[in-house]
């Protein structure tokens, strides 16, 4: 008997993933996007996918695996699966102490060095940009640092994510008040237009950011990203196992221009992953420099 309110109540407990199905699905996910679902997240996967299975009228996770491989809608479902396994918790000005260091020390240094060389081509890569809060925050920070000079600079923030759905939202650039909770209030009228209860990114800021789908396990695709002075990959490598972390961080290192910086999430660490970067300690943040 199917659950009476299956579409509206949490019924995750009904569909159990067996160990064999979990391994099958975990390996499939790893092969598709390099994200490693650890054993202790098995129940999370089971819980989050249970509703997908119900909606698709599938009996078990083995059938879901087949669906992902063979069904005519497999591409759309893969996208849903990616949404399920990556949490998209994000906001503007996430981790303010780290961004303060970035604005006052790192970006100021990088721009200072560029000015000395007469180079006005600034490239930033926001990897795992989710619904766009991070790259737009970076665009605001760049605009704040360059001020009136911004128009004379060639600035591009490449924002990538695995999930097409979050990118669609990012391209729209409309946000609610909650995602603005740590944004300095005085910046709101400068960079956003009011859109009912929501806030819409102003077009001149929007044009600095270019969104695109990117699978971080695709080495060839990573090589195609334009080389940057700054790479943000905050709360991205948490999804990977050590081998994949090494590959992804190696790709960021190769993407960075000498003297460039990489920023990772405050709960993430490069310990046992790479020694290539020079960690530079600031109050409340560590910046990773690719030495020239």
């Amino acid at each position, binding site marked *: 008997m199917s659950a*009476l309110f299956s579409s509206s109540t949490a019924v995750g407990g009904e569909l159990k993933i067996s160990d064999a199905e979990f391994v099958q699905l975990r390996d499939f996910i790893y092969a598709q996007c390099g994200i490693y679902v650890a054993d202790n997240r098995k129940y999370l996967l089971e819980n989050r996918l249970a509703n997908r299975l119900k909606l698709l009228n599938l009996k078990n996770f083995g059938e879901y695996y087949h669906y992902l491989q063979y069904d005519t809608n497999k591409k759309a479902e893969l996208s849903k699966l990616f949404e399920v396994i990556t949490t998209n918790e994000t906001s503007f000005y996430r981790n303010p102490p780290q961004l303060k260091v970035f604005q006052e020390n790192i970006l100021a240094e990088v721009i200072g060095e560029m000015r000395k060389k007469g180079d006005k081509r600034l490239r930033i890569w926001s990897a795992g940009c989710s619904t766009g809060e991070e790259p737009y925050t970076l665009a605001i920070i760049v605009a704040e640092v360059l001020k009136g000079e911004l128009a004379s600079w060639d600035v591009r923030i490449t924002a990538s994510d695995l999930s097409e759905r979050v990118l669609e939202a990012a391209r729209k650039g409309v946000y609610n008040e909650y995602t603005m909770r740590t944004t300095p209030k005085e910046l709101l009228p400068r960079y956003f237009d009011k859109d009912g209860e929501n806030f819409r990114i102003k077009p001149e800021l929007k044009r600095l950011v270019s969104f695109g789908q990117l699978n971080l396990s695709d080495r060839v695709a990573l090589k195609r990203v334009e080389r940057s002075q700054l790479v943000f990959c905050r709360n991205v490598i948490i999804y990977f196992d050590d081998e994949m972390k090494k590959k992804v961080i*190696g790709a960021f290192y190769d993407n960075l221009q000498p003297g460039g910086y990489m920023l990772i999430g405050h709960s993430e660490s490069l310990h046992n992953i790479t*020694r290539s970067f020079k960690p530079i300690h600031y109050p409340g943040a560590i910046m990773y420099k690719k030495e020239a």
Partner: protein
Amino acid sequence: MTDCKEILSMLTSPESDVLREGAYLAGEAHCEDAVPLLVEMLKSSNIGVQEAADNALRMIGGKEAVSAVIPLLQSEEAPVRNGAMDILRTLGGKELQLLIPMLKDEDVDLRIFASDILGSADNVMAVAPLCDALLKDPEVNVRYQAAVSLGSIGLPEAAKCLNQAMRDEEWVQYSVIEALAKIGHASSIDAMVKAMSHSSELVVSMIIDALGAMGNVKAVTLLLNRMESSPTALRNKIVKAIVNILGAKLVNLLPKAERENFREYLLVALEDEELEVQNAAILGLAAMGGDDAAAGIFSIASKLDTDKDQDRLESILESLSRMGLTEVLRTALKGEDQAKALIAVETLSRVSDPEVEGLLTQSFWKNQVVVQRSIIAVLARIAGPGAVDFFMDILARHADGKVLKSAASFLGQKLRHAPAADALFALLDHQYDDVKETALDACVAIDGPEMQERFQRLYQGIDPLKRLMAVYALGKMDAAGNIDILKAALEDESPEIRKHALEAVASLCRDSEVWLELLVSRLLDENRDVRQTVVEIMGQCFSSAAIPHLLHALHDDDDWVKVRTLEVLGQHKVLEAIPEVVGLLENPNKLVTIRTIECLGSIGGTSAFRALLAVSGSDDYEIMEAAEAAIAKIQDEPEREI
């Protein structure tokens, strides 16, 4: 893939980017010729280049790479040396013959490095040379490292030499004790206890921990003998070790004369600042009992963070519950502190004592809603008919969804208490679906003509959710008696209602023929989920009359309807379906093809076998594999003729 020659040219580039890419490719291609150049790159001042070479050498591995890296252990540059050590720890285990001779090198540092690297070897062949170094090397740091490595390897073959090394100086003793604890060999107990009489306080403390970790009962008497004379900190450690060794059997295994003393020591250990000592004391006291002990343990539990300390709290509650209905639980339940009351309820839920029900019932209304939810969930599980009035009162007066669910479940599913029908039926209008669902199941459990009448009236309404609930309930209570309503529901505008009506009709399939006729009408339903349900029910209530309809469903537009049909035909081994089934082998959806193959394997017979043989030569690996499995399945059933 790039060939080795091209990679070698990349590895001589002055550009660091090219060197990194070359190293990556050399690793991927397992290019052994690149090893000398990669080893040179390990000396680069550019860490990015160093790291790329390091990764590549680990991927290539083998004798070639190990031999080339060993000389770097003598580098003057610490990072180069450390990098080489790390690579050899990963690769050296398979190339011991290259590493063991280094234990005899004149250079002390090299002997230390070799001892260290061999510890990662995971190979019994490394034990004898390391034992030799432990007992004979003149340099204390080599002996220290050899003991660490023997512990890392963790094989019992090392116990004898480690026991002997307990006579070495204190610095070596540290690593020897740790190694012995990891290996856990019985012969080491005497060696360690003997060493206690001539060792420093720190070493004695380490030995006590090690004996506890090893868990050998033989050590208990030896430890008890030292208790009286030990200072409090050390005695607490002994308490921990003894509890770890004896566990819950503590009371039975301790000599009678020792028990009360030991209980006193446990109470003292409850105050120790080390969590592990506290935890051991809790386990020990749980076995020995007493209100004073329960109060001490409860006090620790009440200071824990329910999120961060979840596992510890769970284990403490388990201990507390083993002590039964203690005074501290009664007091907490009556007190103002809701966090403590919750702990008490959680503990009481695990205590089997007839007094618990009354205690929880009396305290229910005095507590706040969070505690009430917890209390009623426990009562719904343990209470009997005597609690009916209490639960009826809750249905009448309470507003919280979770509390109401527990009450509904108790009165409906557990007691089938007909006088609760009004209140339970009213909950079908509750704002939360989960409350509705529980109330619905409670109503179904009560059943009876009056309840059925309520649902028959409910079906006449315009709200599709209420019609759905009515169909579900009437189907569960009496599908045959409500067949007219169920027939009407099969034509309902809501597919969910149609599905539930089908399931209700299917419950009649063993008693009447009407079900098939009703089901068939829905095989052309516009909704694929409904059509799938029809096929599944035909499988559950299978009869030969269903076969023509199933064959028809094989041509459904939706692939998942086809898949379900194939499953049913396979499950019931419908031989006459084979010609139609074989036709699906050409289906463009690979999943349908694979399920068709599985279906043929389940049905069996000559024509299925032939069809499978034809696809077993497919270029597609998965199809070939599925066909082979299906053929094997047919062959494994001896009674069938192929």
